[in-house]
C-alpha cells in the first residue's frame, strides 16, 4: 500500500495528466471559433507547460527547471498581451 502511494508515482501520473490536458487545450487553440478563443487556448497551454516544468524540477535533480517555468510564464504573459493588442488595435506596439 505504501508502494501504491509513493511520491514518484504521484508526480509521474500528474505529469501524464497535465500532458493530456495540454493536448486538449491544443484542440481549442486549433478550432476555436473566434480569434480570442485561440489566444485563450494558447495561454492555457503556456500555463500547463509551466506546471510541467515545476513538476519536472521536483521529480528530477535538475533544480533549474523552476527557472524554465518562470521564464515560460513570463513569455506566455507577454505573448498574451501582444496578441490582445494585435486583435484590438491591429498593431503590437503603438
Amino acid at each position: 500500500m505504501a508502494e501504491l502511494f509513493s511520491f514518484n508515482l504521484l508526480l509521474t501520473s500528474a505529469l501524464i495528466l497535465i500532458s493530456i490536458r495540454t493536448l486538449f487545450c491544443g484542440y481549442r487553440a486549433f478550432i476555436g471559433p473566434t480569434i480570442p478563443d485561440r489566444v485563450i487556448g494558447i495561454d492555457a497551454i503556456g500555463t500547463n507547460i509551466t506546471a510541467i516544468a515545476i513538476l519536472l524540477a521536483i521529480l528530477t535533480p535538475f533544480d533549474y527547471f523552476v527557472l524554465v517555468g518562470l521564464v515560460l510564464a513570463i513569455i506566455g504573459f507577454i505573448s498574451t498581451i501582444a496578441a490582445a493588442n494585435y486583435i484590438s488595435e491591429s498593431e503590437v506596439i503603438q
Partner: protein
Amino acid sequence: MIDIHALSVALDSTHSPRSMIVMFFIILGCFFLTVGTLGLLRLPDVYNRLHATSKSTTLGAASIFFSGFLHYGFQGMGLTSLVGVLFLFLTAPTGSHMISRAAQKMGVEFFGDVTWPTHSDSQTHSNEDAISDETDV
C-alpha cells in the same frame, strides 16, 4: 532515453509531513488545472471560457509553484518558486482582462440572449440602447 526513476530525488521518507503537504498541493493543482481545461473545452462562449481558464488555471499553476516552494524550502529555487507565485497572481488577471477587452472590441457576441450590463443611471433604457452605450465607452 532517460530513465526518470533512476534520476529521481530519493525522498527517503516518503510519508514525512513535508512530502505529504507537497503531495497535497500537487493534487490540488492537478484538480484546478483539470477544472480549467474542462471549462475551456465545454463552455459555450469566449467570455465563459475566459472565466474558467483565467481563475482555475492560475490557481492550479500557483499551487504547483507553491508545492515547489515547500519542496525546496527557503533557499535557491524555493524563493524562485515564490517569485513565480507572485508573478502568476499579478499577470494572469491582467492578460485575461486584455483578451476580454479585445474580444469586446472585436464584437464577439454572448451566447444566448445575454447582453452587456446597463449603467446604473440608465436602467430604463432598452437593451439596444445599453449596447450602443457600452460600445463607445
